[in-house]
């Protein structure tokens, strides 16, 4: 390890003894590069018995929370929230806490590998870089494809620049996290209603009555910690009254459980309910019913959604009388063929409430001025499907995959895995031997996030523009290499126009060049030049604007256009709606190889280590299903088997399955555990071109087998089994 790896940088951030408050102290401009040295020779800032804290960014989901990692003699010990970070203000979620088990996972890809016929052979990085160089310059630009995950943004920005320089297609960015958030659909709805292609920010904390239509914002949706904080402010009653939250969804989610009321609307009718509520609110307020709601028939909506008219009227009264009412669209409500319209209907409800840009209302988050030309996704299923089509027809000669595990995450019906066979060269940058990596020709493992540099643009959740910064907190544990460095090395080796167009010596250089635009902006960092700026960027864990401030939407009078909803359509035949939701603990499934996440109970079912099928107890009785009975769930597109969990709070026509398990790779803790519900999904699309993931119908069959689910709750104590 003489060359690049010896140039890994370890900046001293703070050497103070304890507490996250120490992050902001004890820093001086240190040397940029620290030589990787034997363990016995501690860096000079490491004291025996004293911990060193580093600020970085959590990459377990794309929200961009700031974390502070406690390290001790070169080992990362504990992840805490970064108290000054505007997204999470010092808080963390389960997934963030368990990120260390990614870093120290026993099943990492420890060195670059070449895969052939099931055989994995270690190669050296020189060869790896040659392979990447050949793939970049040996193919025509349009034959190269980059498929990236939701983070990190600096990699996306660099790859965009490379592809622009090459003249190839922009990298695609996808992932089930974004899919189950209905991110693409929501962005498009925001563009239509609020006039900006961005994610809206709903100021839950400032509202006193909030109606959430399918948005599971306390679990995985957009920025759970920011919304959790907002929820707490709302509950504490910032406006003098304890906030009131109503959740509209067919299956009671964790967010619904924390809400004050749960309305079990029929799948696909959330938008209809929003429209009916809008009309009723407008009527309750008196005056003219806006054009948007003139065509709405409350009785039809009540009939279709299964929500009694009385309930709608009562809720509308609450909404109308609130000082700061708020409506939040998201999640499965948007995962229908009418999802885009539903999102517009919900956003319009905010316009009706007059809360756009008001406290307790809807805002837009300014994006920091870094690579503004790199207009990152979210891409839709249509675009992914197009890529798969190109792959299938042999138009893609080299596929680079980073940060996404499409063989696991994409609906099986898309045929991604089969299409891979027609791609001559697949290069995966996965840190773990996931399903896609094992199908690749090469794995050039990236560092895990805690060993990595980078930044993440905060798209929603903070109260100001913010760029969350990442830096390595420990020396890379294995013979891995930053993907950015690998790409840059390959480009430098290629030379020519490409090298001239991407003029960065290494990852840190790229970061510093990228951050140049922020040096002059008013923010938490006051530095005259980039090196001091960079030091403070690492110390603070990012850059954010000095003043809190979000953009108020400039709305093109959304109430003027009549709102209509198309009839929900469902893919396939079957007596049940399939409600797939991302596991609040395992997220997009990448968390399944963290044993502590596996053993953290699901908030609602308290199940650990497995997949289950939630079914209404009455329905289960009709089908003769008891807890732990293994059922076969079949759609027209696939089938899986999983044990039954009799879930009291789900509609009788719906079954729910969490997403995250069912890996066939990814190491000992994930492999062979549970089932993957994306195998069941049909390919209906929302108006925005993304997958209508909640619009599949399925059938249930008993298998006659049972399999005990590991649950923390007591079936006797909670459900009274055996006590009758």
């Amino acid at each position, binding site marked *: 390890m003489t060359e690049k790896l010896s140039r890994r940088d370890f900046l001293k951030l703070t050497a103070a003894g304890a507490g996250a408050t120490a992050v902001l102290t004890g820093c001086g401009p240190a040397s940029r590069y620290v030589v990787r040295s034997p363990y016995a020779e501690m860096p000079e800032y490491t004291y025996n018995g004293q911990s060193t804290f580093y600020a970085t960014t959590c990459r377990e989901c794309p929200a961009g929370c700031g974390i502070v990692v406690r390290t001790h003699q070169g080992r990362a010990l504990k992840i805490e929230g970064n108290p000054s970070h505007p997204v999470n203000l010092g808080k963390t979620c389960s997934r963030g806490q368990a990120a260390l088990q990614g870093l120290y996972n026993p099943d990492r890809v420890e060195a670059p590998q070449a895969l052939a016929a099931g055989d994995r052979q270690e190669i050296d990085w020189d060869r790896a870089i040659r392979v990447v160089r050949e793939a970049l310059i040996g193919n025509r630009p349009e034959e190269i494809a980059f498929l990236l995950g939701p983070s990190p943004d600096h990699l996306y920005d660099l790859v965009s620049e490379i592809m622009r320089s090459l003249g190839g297609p922009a990298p695609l960015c996808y992932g089930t996290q974004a899919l189950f958030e209905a991110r693409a659909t929501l962005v498009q709805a925001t563009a239509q209603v609020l006039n900006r292609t961005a994610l809206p920010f709903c100021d839950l904390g400032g509202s006193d009555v909030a109606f959430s239509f399918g948005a599971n914002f306390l679990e995985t949706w957009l920025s759970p910690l920011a919304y959790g904080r907002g929820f707490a402010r709302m509950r504490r009653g910032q406006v003098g009254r304890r906030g009131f939250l109503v959740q509209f969804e067919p299956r009671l989610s964790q967010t619904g459980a924390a809400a004050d009321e749960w309305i079990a609307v029929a799948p696909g009718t959330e938008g209809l309910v929003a429209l009916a509520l809008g009309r009723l609110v407008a009527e309750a307020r008196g005056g003219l019913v806006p054009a948007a709601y003139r065509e709405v028939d409350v009785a039809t909506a009540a009939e279709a959604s299964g929500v009694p008219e009385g309930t709608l009227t009562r809720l509308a009264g609450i909404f109308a009388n609130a000082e700061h009412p708020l409506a939040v669209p998201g999640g499965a409500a948007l995962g229908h063929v009418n999802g885009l319209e539903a999102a517009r209907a919900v956003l319009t409800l905010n316009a009706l409430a007059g809360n756009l840009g008001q406290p307790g209302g809807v805002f837009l988050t300014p994006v920091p001025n870094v690579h503004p030309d790199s207009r990152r996704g979210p891409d839709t299923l249509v675009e992914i499907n197009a890529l798969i089509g190109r792959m299938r027809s042999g138009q893609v000669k080299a596929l680079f995959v980073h940060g996404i595990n499409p063989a696991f995450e994409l609906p099986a019906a898309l045929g991604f895995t089969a299409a891979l066979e027609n791609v001559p060269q697949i290069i995966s940058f996965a840190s773990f031997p996931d399903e896609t990596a094992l199908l690749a020709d090469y794995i050039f493992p990236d560092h895990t996030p805690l060993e990595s540099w980078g930044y993440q643009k905060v798209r929603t959740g903070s109260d100001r523009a913010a760029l969350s910064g990442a830096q390595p907190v420990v020396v890379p544990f294995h013979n891995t290499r930053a993907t950015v460095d690998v790409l840059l090395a390959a480009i430098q080796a290629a030379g020519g126009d490409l090298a001239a167009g991407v003029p960065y010596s290494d990852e840190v250089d790229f970061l510093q060049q990228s951050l140049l635009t922020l040096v002059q902006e008013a923010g938490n960092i006051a530095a005259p030049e980039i090196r001091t700026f960079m030091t403070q960027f690492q110390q603070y864990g990012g850059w954010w604007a000095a003043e809190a401030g979000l953009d108020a939407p400039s709305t093109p009078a959304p109430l003027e256009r009549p709102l209509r909803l198309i009839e929900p359509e469902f893919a396939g035949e079957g007596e049940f709606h399939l409600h797939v939701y991302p596991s609040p603990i395992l997220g997009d499934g990448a968390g399944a190889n963290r044993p502590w996440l596996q053993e953290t109970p699901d908030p609602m079912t308290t199940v650990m280590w497995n997949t289950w099928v939630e079914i209404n107890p009455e329905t289960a009785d009709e089908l003769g299903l008891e807890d732990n009975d293994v059922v076969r769930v079949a759609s027209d597109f696939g089938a899986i088997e999983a044990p039954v969990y009799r879930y009291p709070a789900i509609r009788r026509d719906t079954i729910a399955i969490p997403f995250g398990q069912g890996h066939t790779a990814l190491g000992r803790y994930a492999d062979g555990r549970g089932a993957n519900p994306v195998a069941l999904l049909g390919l209906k699309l929302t108006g925005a071109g993304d997958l209508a993931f909640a619009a599949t119908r399925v059938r249930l069959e008993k298998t006659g087998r049972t399999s005990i689910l590991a649950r*923390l*709750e*007591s079936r*006797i*104590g*909670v459900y009274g089994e*055996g*006590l*009758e």
Partner: protein
Amino acid sequence: MAATAKPIAPATHEEHAESRQHLMLDPRPRGEMNAMVMESMHTTSWKFWGIAFLLGIVVLVCLFLAWGYMISEGLGVAGVNRPAYWGIFLVNTVFWIGISHAGTFVSALLRVFKAEFRRPFTRAAELMTTFGLIQAGLSIFMHMGRVWLSYWLAPYPNARGLWPNFHSPLAWDFLAINTYLLASTMYLFLPLIPDLAMARDRSTGWRKVVYRVLALGFRGTEGEWAHLRTAMNIFAFAILPVMFSVHTIVAWDFAAASRPGWSSTIFGPYFVVGALHSGVAAVAMVLVVVRGTMKNMKYFIRAEHFDAIGKLMLVISMGWAYFFFNDYLVQWYGGDHWTHTLLAWHESGPLAWIWGLMLVCNVAVPWFLLWNRKIRSRPGWMFVIGLLINVGMWCERYVIIPISLTINRMPFTWQSYRPGIEIVLGIGTLAFFILLYMLASRLVPLVPVWEVQEGQMAHSLRKFGRKTVVSVSELE
């Protein structure tokens, strides 16, 4: 007054004599009785050794190997969990302590009250005390998470200068069980000395050496007898409160805990009666086996003895039922929500059959069968009844420990208990008990011959008008 009692039951009075056969009114010369006892000790068949060998294998595998495996793996191989932190290990502990109560009860209490029918089988019962306590001790040690540190319970300042915590019922347990184990072993040994001397006088070879050492040089001088008698009197009176305290303290392990169903002031006597219930029943079982398998024992252990033990069992069963109902009624009447839930769990939970079996075996079986003298006098019946009572009492402990532990004040944590390696280890302790008893039966005179002879001296027939009755004299 004759030292060697003459046959005093003439043929004409046979019917009277039969009615009091447990007083053994057909005395034989001491020498003959000695020879009978010696013969019974010396007689072994291939069956005996076969069974002993099998038991030895079972002890090795089910007790020592299984335990070693559990020690190296941790208690995870057993069925204990949250909230059933205590399982069959403690069920067995309480069970064996209960068994061990029989010996002391039969021997000491009946001695104190001069119940003459006790004489031939006190030794057989006392052996059960010692061997039962060994199993109880083993079961406690199995239960401990770090058994290799169990000596920290002993009252001495350990490596950290720390004494045990005498606030803890477990510390009391440690003192009480050790006191009881020591006391009952001493109490077994003292009356054994004359019999060991007897055996010494009639043995050769290695047995002679063993008995000579164990007999301590006893000849039977006036002084030796006087000291022995005094000591036995002191023991008979003093070991009774110790016995009661042991099982009461075991009961306090549960009663002192603030748990629904356990927190009961009646648990002390309830447990003591329960211990006697299983203990006396076990004595009956052992006597049936000893009588049936050992030579000459039909002379010493007679149907009338079973009759007398049967009555005792019936009375104890009633006592147990009384305490059970007392506990049940008060819990039912005044218990809180959790107690009521627990009672419902006992009666109609998935393991309600154990609760039902307990009542059938402990109450219905004795009450329906033991009132009948014919049944009481038949060893076969008594063995079955004794077995059922022991099953019932084991069920009682199972209901009190793992089944009750399922229910607590945090319903979110309720979880049923499913035994694991405990079953194997329980079989191991049972086999160990039987093996020890088998070996002891060939090494230790099972019948205290001198006590039998003393009793025969004291019994005589006396005529009241036309009726002849047995009269018992006090020799002291």
